[in-house]
């Protein structure tokens, strides 16, 4: 549950860093859910027309170009614009990528009733940069999606893996994977690196989903509601094998998904800590001392980890 100002809490931000997604059930009101499908239908037709070289003249709002500030996309009377401008949605966006991020691209994902289309797991775009900055992708479901009725499949906590889409496709199943189902108006927010896949829709209802990717245009440091920050942000001594807290960001980062068994979870913790160092502007942050131990020794020879 976000803070009263609609921004995410530190607790929610830490969950996003650990799992790579957040879910907000029935966040979008029904007056938008019930009217947006017609606009999505026009956007879809225009997009397909453009791809096949036909005029994109189906009507509907002008389609934004990449690099357009979000505030200049989908102006009134666009229903899509109304959805994106909801204070609840703006609070989530600003918490993760700062104010007025840049439009990257969007896509209407309509899965016709009875569709057998089955995607392999993949990560979008190309292999990630080495820095901890990230884009977000909003997945908005304007209609109810029943279990196994075409909801997006995704694998929590895969977002920090440095991979290419074609390499990810070999993993048919990973423990803890999820397939979206839920009520109309649910919004999911993904880190851009989260592994996901489209699924068949054996139901007799078309499944609509709108996805938009947003790029930060400013630093992502401490953009969320800081009300609980001092309370749960730990220092580098929070260490399972020495003295540990159970109420800290580190404890959230220690929580692994079912597929993250074994000693590799230590490296996963290091990657989460690295991202939190960026977001919290605390270069000494750590979980279970893995970075700190190496950095302490590195100082002896002047080498920084």
């Amino acid at each position, binding site marked *: 549950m976000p803070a009263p100002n609609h921004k995410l809490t530190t607790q929610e931000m830490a969950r996003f860093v650990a799992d790579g997604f957040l879910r907000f059930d029935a966040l979008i009101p029904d007056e938008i859910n019930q009217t947006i499908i017609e606009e999505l239908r026009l956007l879809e037709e225009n997009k397909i027309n453009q791809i096949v070289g036909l005029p994109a003249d189906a009507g509907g709002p002008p389609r934004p170009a990449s690099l357009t500030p979000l505030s200049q996309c989908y102006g009134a009377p666009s229903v899509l614009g109304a959805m994106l401008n909801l204070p609840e949605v703006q609070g989530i966006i600003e918490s993760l990528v700062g104010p007025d991020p840049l439009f990257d691209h969007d896509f209407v994902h309509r899965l016709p009733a009875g569709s057998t289309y089955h995607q392999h797991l993949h990560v979008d775009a190309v292999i990630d940069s080495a820095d901890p900055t990230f884009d977000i992708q909003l997945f908005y479901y304007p209609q109810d999606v029943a279990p196994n009725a075409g909801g997006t499949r995704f694998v929590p906590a895969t977002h920090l893996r440095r991979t290419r889409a074609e390499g990810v496709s070999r*993993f048919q199943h990973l*423990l803890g994977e999820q397939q979206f189902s839920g009520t109309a108006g649910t919004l999911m927010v993904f880190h851009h690196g989260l592994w996901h896949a489209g699924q068949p829709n054996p139901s007799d209802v078309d499944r609509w989903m709108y996805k938009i990717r947003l790029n930060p245009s400013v630093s992502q440091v401490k953009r969320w509601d800081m009300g609980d920050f001092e309370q749960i942000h730990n220092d580098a001594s929070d260490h399972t094998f020495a003295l540990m807290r159970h109420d800290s960001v580190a404890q959230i980062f220690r929580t692994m998904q*079912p*597929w993250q*068994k*074994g*000693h590799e979870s230590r490296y*996963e913790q290091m*990657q989460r800590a690295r991202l939190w160092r960026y977001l919290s502007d605390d270069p000494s942050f750590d979980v279970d001392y893995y970075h700190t131990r190496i950095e302490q020794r590195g100082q002896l020879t002047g080498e920084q980890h």
Partner: protein
Amino acid sequence: MAMRQQVLYLWLAEGALDTETIGWAFHDGSSGKGPQLPEGEPPYPTGLAALEDGWCLFQSPAPHPLYPGTEYDVSYPANEFVFERRVDS
């Protein structure tokens, strides 16, 4: 009747064959005519359990030297064990 190959990938928690399964993939050259995987997720709790059910291991991952600068990266699940079963179909 012709021989067809079934291939099972298991990704395990560690590099040892008797550690827990975290992921799997199944490719069935018999187009469903041969025996299928056991019910349950995962189909086998460990790689050893697959051996005990008659699968033959034909590839296991060896530890590999780490490249300087990438020692702490996480990437594809690395402990990939590949099994086969030959069936008449």
